[in-house]
């Protein structure tokens, strides 16, 4: 049973078509990078995977179930683009709150791994953008998810912090967590070295290739991206 199975997935917002017949299969334990420009449909795709919204048409199964089912949601955690933390509370209070909603005892390890433990008792509003992002990633990992979804988690991060986040994500992926990593930065994807790269363009899955093959065929993620974009424009 795959971690994520999407068949002929469509999402429409009125006249705007955000996803057009997308087929994706993600195996358990895979690390998949989802790349694309703004408005390409990648965030819409993960919104469906996380059960935030439903597709207009098509089939979506997450861990074999309906992603909007609370039992499935409990096994998936997300790092939203904006972090998803309450500003007026400390990091620890945020962790307790989300852990209560997910019904889990939070894992302390990610906070040490991402060096968040030093400011667990500081209010989020007093933290820098980078510290908040680290805290948000650590929190998502602390919920012991089977699938971790990260929506552009390294925005606002300096190179060191970005490397730390990527290493933490890789470490958890190696221990069995399935990871969907959304980004619009080709260099970040190269740094991540995922198992597979999906490129979304204009609501379609324009490319779905193992990272190694992509690198050997195109030399870089940027060249692969350019080739795919040119092909889509040609069509």
């Amino acid at each position: 049973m795959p971690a994520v199975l999407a068949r002929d997935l469509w999402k429409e917002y009125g006249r705007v078509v955000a996803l057009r017949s997308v087929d994706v299969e993600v195996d358990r334990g895979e690390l998949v990078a989802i790349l694309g420009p703004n408005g390409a449909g990648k965030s819409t795709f993960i919104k469906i995977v996380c059960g935030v919204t439903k597709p207009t048409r098509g089939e979506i199964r997450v861990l074999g179930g309906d992603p909007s089912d609370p039992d499935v949601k409990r096994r998936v955690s997300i790092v939203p683009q904006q972090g998803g933390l309450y500003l007026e509370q400390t990091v620890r209070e945020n962790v307790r709150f989300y852990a209560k909603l997910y019904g889990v005892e939070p894992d302390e390890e990610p906070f040490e791994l991402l060096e968040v433990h030093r400011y667990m008792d500081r209010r989020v509003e007093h933290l820098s953008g980078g510290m908040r992002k680290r805290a948000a990633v650590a929190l998502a990992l602390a919920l012991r998810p089977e699938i971790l979804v990260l929506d552009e988690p390294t925005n606002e991060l300096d190179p060191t912090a970005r490397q730390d986040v990527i290493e933490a994500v890789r470490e958890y992926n190696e221990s069995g967590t399935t990871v969907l990593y959304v980004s619009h930065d080709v260099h970040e994807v190269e740094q991540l070295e995922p198992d597979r790269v999906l490129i979304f363009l204009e609501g379609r899955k324009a490319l779905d290739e193992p990272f190694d093959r992509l690198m050997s065929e195109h030399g870089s993620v940027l060249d692969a991206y350019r080739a795919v974009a040119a092909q889509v424009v040609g069509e």
Partner: protein
Amino acid sequence: MSWRAIAARDLKAWVKDRRRMTVTFTMPVIVMIMMYGAFYDVNPTSVNVAILRHDSGSGDPIVDQLKRDHRVHLIHVKSVREGRDLVRRGSASVFLYLPSGFPDRKAEVYYDPTDPMGSRYVLSKIQRAWAKHVASSLKSSMKRLAPVLRMMPVRPAVHAPRFNPFHVRTPVKGLKYFDYLIPGLAVMTAAMGSIFGLGRLMMEEIELGVSYALFAAPIRARDVVIGRFVNMTVWGCVRCAIIVLVALALGAKILHPILLFLVGALSAATMVGLGLLMASLAGRSEVAEMATGTVTIPMMFLSGIFMPISVMPGWARALATINPMYYMGDAARKAALLGYLDPVDLLVLLGFMVGFLAAGSVLYDRVREYL
């Protein structure tokens, strides 16, 4: 029971936030003290009255009455034009011209419509003084006629009616405008924070990605709504309780504070529903604030909380029947001053609460599409 987790988080966050707590506890006190200072008694404290006399003393009862009144300051003018100019420029609220031949020739009372309180006060004083004068003249005429009447072989059936045949009673004596204002203020304070507070909180959550995380969490959207509803209603009750306690400390007449508090709680709950509805409709914080303000300000002024709706025109009274704030104010006043919980008011408020919450919940669930 995820709504409990949401409500508990919100409550804890509120209690731990010193700035929010300071505002929660000090604002109602400041508002009450200001209201007490400004509106304890709505009679004007000082009114300028321009006066021009060409009469031969027949207007004395009126002028004497105005002179005795410590709120009235008389300005003697030399011409009708000067008197009217003073009113037009706002230097006097009323110009009184007593012409020669008064009262056979009518006096002129020229008043400033932009100062209804002041001018109405002076008009009532003038009319009352003149009515008193007429009544006492009648009385003395009757007295002078009495010997003549006694000498008549057949006495005409003359019966002078009592000058004041009314015995005025009220369930609550000596109410000031401040007392009238308090019940409305208590429910309004409970409700307003709920409307704006919930909208702001929801918009902040959308902007911080918290809404996204909550929609992705293993809870139902309605749990979020219920949790928020409980928290906001609790704080509405706290604000209402503060207003009631401060008002009592300032000597306001609240004969049934517990009933007033209950109406305040229901009002807060109703307006939480409206806040949820407005915020879910607006989708962005600045739009939510503008829309909420646009809806609530007319609601407030057409609620009868500041002025009874009996003084409003027909269209405003008709609007009041679909205005939840009217029912809040009406229920609060009856509860606080008469000890009567009006079932109509309460049922209408309950209906609004359920309607707002149901519509707000449906719209809140749609927010997920635009995250």
